[in-house]
């Protein structure tokens, strides 16, 4: 069958998926006609919702996106940033560390 990809334990057919998605979109569009039509365009009813911010505060800059996630993960990011020093010495240091670890493991494993 065209587009059928065997994944070892199952299969994936993107063509069937795409046709199904198209039918679902049509259905959703059809159902949308039954929706409430009494809204007033140009009022707050049709304003974009953006996490409670007023549209005049848009655009929301990259710095503000996921701020809660970064605040919660602050400690972990500090630890990661400590490794990413940007110093060439550290690049070579990690290179040597990997060689030493792999050599040690391979030597012990080969005994």
């Amino acid at each position: 069958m065209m587009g059928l990809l065997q994944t070892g334990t199952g299969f994936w057919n993107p063509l069937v998926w795409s046709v199904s998605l198209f039918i679902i979109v049509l259905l959703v569009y059809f159902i949308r006609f039954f929706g409430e039509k009494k809204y007033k365009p140009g009022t707050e009813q049709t304003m974009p919702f953006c996490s409670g911010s007023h549209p005049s505060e848009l655009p929301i800059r990259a710095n503000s996106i996921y701020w809660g996630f970064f605040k919660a993960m602050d400690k972990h990011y500090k630890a990661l940033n400590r490794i990413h020093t940007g110093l060439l010495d550290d690049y070579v240091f990690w290179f040597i560390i990997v060689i030493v670890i792999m050599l040690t493991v391979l030597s012990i494993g080969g005994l």
Partner: protein
Amino acid sequence: MNLLLHAPILAISIPLLGGLATPIITKFGKRVRDSWIILSLLFTEFLVLILTHDILSNGIRTYTLGAKFPTDTIPIANFIPVRIVLELDAFSVFMAITSVTIALIASIYSLKFIKEGTAKSKYYTLLLLLTAAMVGLVFTGDLFSMFVFLEILSISSGVLVAFYSHKGEALEAAFKYIVISAVGALMILLAIGLLYGHYNLLNIAALANVLKFSFSDKVALVLLIAAFAMKCGAVPLHMWVPDAYGEAPAPISAVLVVASQAGLYALFRISFTLFSALPTIEIVAWSVIILGVLSMFIGVIMAISQKNIKRLMAYHAISQTGYMLLGIGVGLAVIGNINALNSFGITAMEGGIFHIINHAIYKGLLFLTAGAIIYRVGTKDLNKMGGLAHKMPFTTIFFLIGALAITGLPPFNGFASKLMIYESVFRFSPLLSIIAMMVSILTLASFVKVFYSAFMGPKLKEHNEIREVPKTMLIAMLVLALLTLLVGLFPDIVVDNIISPAAHALVDQSKYIGGVL
């Protein structure tokens, strides 16, 4: 002249000589130069395609330099292959197609992206040298030539990273890249020396036939794996990647993705063809898997916090490399267990190899869209962007296609390869599969951030003059966007015709040895 017979060496020498002749060709005019570049790469692509067709139909092809007949790998007076031998199997040509296609598209994009009067001829010379190095690296059948091609690759790409030499950051990134590449190359040379001193051989097939797996062989293996893992940007050897990808011109960042994948090729060639019979190969495989998991996870965690669009994408490149290492590492881990290999190992490898070409396509596309933004807005800072969808609608659509593909959403190409990796790796270790899925979710979150901050929102006053990028840049992005969609819609054609033969070629060590001996 029999074109097919000499195609292996022509596929290396056409971009090499094409690149070296570019400064002279430039004297005849810019249009002649541009045509020369595109034709050189188109001809290389044609050569790689006819080679692919031949190898998939007739099996391994060898080419011996200096021999009376290029197919004579062993001189009559000797019993070992002493000359430089190119050995091409399905995995080699798969990598060559990926490299040359991206280089060709990047060169079309560069026609307008790189402004005249900014050493454009030298830029193209280096781009063609880089292409020759990538093709040479994946075609060569001996270790020393591999080292030489890797050096050409590192030097040409290092200079391209420093292309914007008026910026201190670009020079710093190039310096770091060249130094760390030189350290890696030194380790490779040391490993080659260890193997040559022990066996008096440089040919990979001949070495694989006699390898005794002594302690010095293991030292050589570790040095080679570490150096090539650094070259492909695996964590914790990845730190040069955001510097180099971030500062290079955008089309070069796209080519650097495939240049890093050439390092990945070397890593897999060494692990499978040379050392797959090593009694402790499972330890090596687990090292590759751990490097893969670290790359996936740390890559995406670092990416999500970036404010520089190109550094963000560079960290994603690291993360995606992790998927390839994971898939192929699982194949290596079960190489001694024929039941597990047939049951899920080969599928994991196919997933990993499929992800190589998918990543080259969608990450190439994403870097080109980043380049389009930088070309018009003049900044890489996401905080200074917004509302670009109003002004650059085509770039927005192309970015969206690339972003959906990298996050692994159907029906784009990234989903197909990731699904193969998830399902097969789950049978090896459910935890690894779950980590891979979680990384995809974080990737989605990261690209939602980029899409929202760069393209969504109202028009900004400071972007009043911004308009869509020139046509050649749009065409290059369109080709990659179409490939992303088509490979996603018809993954079976790609997997059956080039991915599966590549995975089987990698596993079948005896066929590779038999190609030369």
